[in-house]
């Protein structure tokens, strides 16, 4: 009877543990369930959490960089149109009135370029560096932003730029707004050599924008790679976490049934041990 009492206590706690395992689906519900694996479990769980944040950050970075890329393509188109305008009116066949009309067209190109360098994503001026809460360029084309670029963490020791110093990216080796302004001045002044000089400036600005497009493209590539890496790591880590932490429900259930059977058997044996000795016969 004493043995049954003790075995029922021990079986009771084992059955309760298995019940918990089956109901939570987890083999490790507290450190004492497998102390040796706790550190590993914590590390896997931390890495898994990290991948989630990295993917979130990388996705947001991709969206921003997409907008930046589109803006630069449009800017390139705008500057190309400005260049074509300059080439067209560098020709001596145009008179002063025609050139004066072209100057008005250059104003429109200036405004388009200004609007593009002040492109926003989620209320952030993409080309204002870390000072992205204000316009990157003033109405005269002067750079107002910061010379630092904001960066977002998208992986272990992996960051991407999520904003650019316009003074470096767009107007580092050239002055696009100066070029358009010079073109307009030359057109108004019917100044052919001035138009040709402005054309050189526009070419330099185009080179800068192309370089900028390459840089933004590179950041985008890094961001997409980081997102992909985090995504595949997440799958691997989820599996690793499951193998450490999760219980094999079928196995746990069969162990539970076995324990209950053992318990029933112990009860049966005990009930058969009721006294039937000599005293009942004398």
């Amino acid at each position, binding site marked *: 009877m*004493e*043995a049954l009492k*003790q075995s029922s206590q*021990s079986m009771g706690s084992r059955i309760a543990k298995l019940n918990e395992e089956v109901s939570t689906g*987890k083999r*490790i*519900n*507290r*450190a*004492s*369930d*497998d*102390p*040796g694996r*706790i*550190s590993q*479990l*914590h*590390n896997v*769980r*931390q890495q898994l*959490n*990290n991948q*989630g*944040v*990295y993917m*979130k*950050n990388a996705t*947001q*970075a991709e969206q921003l960089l997409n907008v930046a890329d589109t803006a630069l393509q449009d800017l390139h188109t705008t500057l190309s149109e400005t260049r074509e305008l300059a080439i067209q009116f560098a020709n001596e066949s145009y008179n002063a009135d025609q050139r004066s009309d072209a100057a008005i067209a250059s104003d429109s190109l200036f405004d388009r370029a200004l609007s593009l360098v002040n492109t926003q994503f*989620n209320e*952030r001026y993409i080309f204002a*560096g*870390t*000072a*992205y*809460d204000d316009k990157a360029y003033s109405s005269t084309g002067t750079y107002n932003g*910061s010379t*630092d670029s*904001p*960066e*977002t*963490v998208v992986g272990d020791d992996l*960051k991407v730029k*999520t*904003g650019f110093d316009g003074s470096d990216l767009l107007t580092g080796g050239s002055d696009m707004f100066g070029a358009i302004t010079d073109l307009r001045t030359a057109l108004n002044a019917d100044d052919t050599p001035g138009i040709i000089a402005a054309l050189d400036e526009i070419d330099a600005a185009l080179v800068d924008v192309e370089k900028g497009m390459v840089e933004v493209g590179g950041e985008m590539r890094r961001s997409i790679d980081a997102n992909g890496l985090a995504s595949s790591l997440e799958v691997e880590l989820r599996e690793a976490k499951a193998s450490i*932490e999760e219980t094999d429900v079928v196995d746990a259930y069969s162990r539970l049934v076995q324990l209950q059977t053992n318990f029933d058997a112990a009860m049966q044996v005990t009930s058969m041990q009721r*006294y039937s*000795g*000599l*005293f009942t016969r*004398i």
Partner: protein
Amino acid sequence: MSIRTLHIGRSGLKTASYGIDVTGQNVTNASTEGYVRRRLVQQTRVPHRNEHGVFTGQGVTASAIHRDIDRFASERCFESLGEQSMATTAHESLSVVEANFREGDTAAIADRLDRFFDAATELTSEPSDHGLRLAMRDAGQDLAEAVNRGGKALVESIRRAEDRIQDEITGINKILSDIKVLHERISDSDSVTGPADLMDARDGLTEQLAEKIGVGVDYQANGQLTLMVGGHAIVQEVHVRQLSTSGTSGSLSVKMEAGEGTVSVDAFLKGELGGLIKARDQMAATLASLDTFAEEFVDEINAQHSSGFDAYGVPGLDFFSIPTGATNPAIDMALDTALAADAQMIAAAATPGAEVGDGANLEAILDVENTKLFSGGTQNSRDFISSIYSDLGNSIVGFEVDATTHGAIVDDLVSLKDANSKVDLDEEAVSLIQYQAAYQAAARVVTAADELLNELMATVR
């Protein structure tokens, strides 16, 4: 001759009657806890020498009632009981504490630590975003609360363990006093009528004492026991030493009387008291580790945070606070009150320009996650927290294994002990038949003597 025969018959009747008494006592106590079966020891009475120098028998006498105890198994059983009780108590106490350190719970310290750094990582994507700043502030608050909760649970568990130690001491001293009284009565008792029952009672108390404090047991030839705790005799015949406690919360110590003073027996105690002390010591070690974590982690985060600049371009404050001289930094760790009131005071920027996109200081704060601050520069904060969890878990598993092992040993020893000491009803039924037959035979001797005497008297008349 017939008169002597009558005496011989009477001695047989008396002894058989004793035998039936002893058997009856055994049968009726078959299920009495702690009862050790008795055996009547019979002995031939001193023979009579008649006038011819011939020795003639005087019948039989009951010389003693023997208590069938296996001393060796009993001594080992008491000792193993102390080991089992210690491991079981420590396991149970620590399992209760571990409920506050559940694995995979969103309130767990490890999870909160992850979320704090995750929130900082997310803030790097938009350092000016107020929502993300609030998220990082709240994650810091949650981390501090998780550490507080763990610390408070440990302090409370230590207090409860020590309260229970003090409560147990009163009961243990009462057991010791009762053993002393029983030993006094045993030494005064008649060997046939008294001591076996007193010894049963004494052994019952010894078992309780073994479960409470764990004792080394040595049965003496005079039926008394010497009980040892470590190298100190806590019971020696009619001399017992009482227990007491001294020290403050967290370092309560159990003392035993020794000469004019006391001696600490913490290291020797087993049983429930030993288990409580072991559990208390483990809790204290876990608390000390958690305090170390709080102190070192807060220092490092604060150092990084205050080297940056907040959204107003002002140098950063401490991110967390721990009052100077706090007894348990884990309990007092909190978010800085100014920062708690205004998440704009999170010093995300590395430069004082107050540029909204400057999150460079966040990257320095993130570096703390992997800085090996603990265990002599070998563990980062997560490794250290994991080691606190696994240390506690290992301790619980260790005690569980000990409890199971010693439980099995106790079961074996109890079986061995019971094989000798427990009443076997079949055996008692045989004894009863035997003593009944002996009684009938002795009665027949008396009848025969009576008939002879009657014959003689008739002849004389």
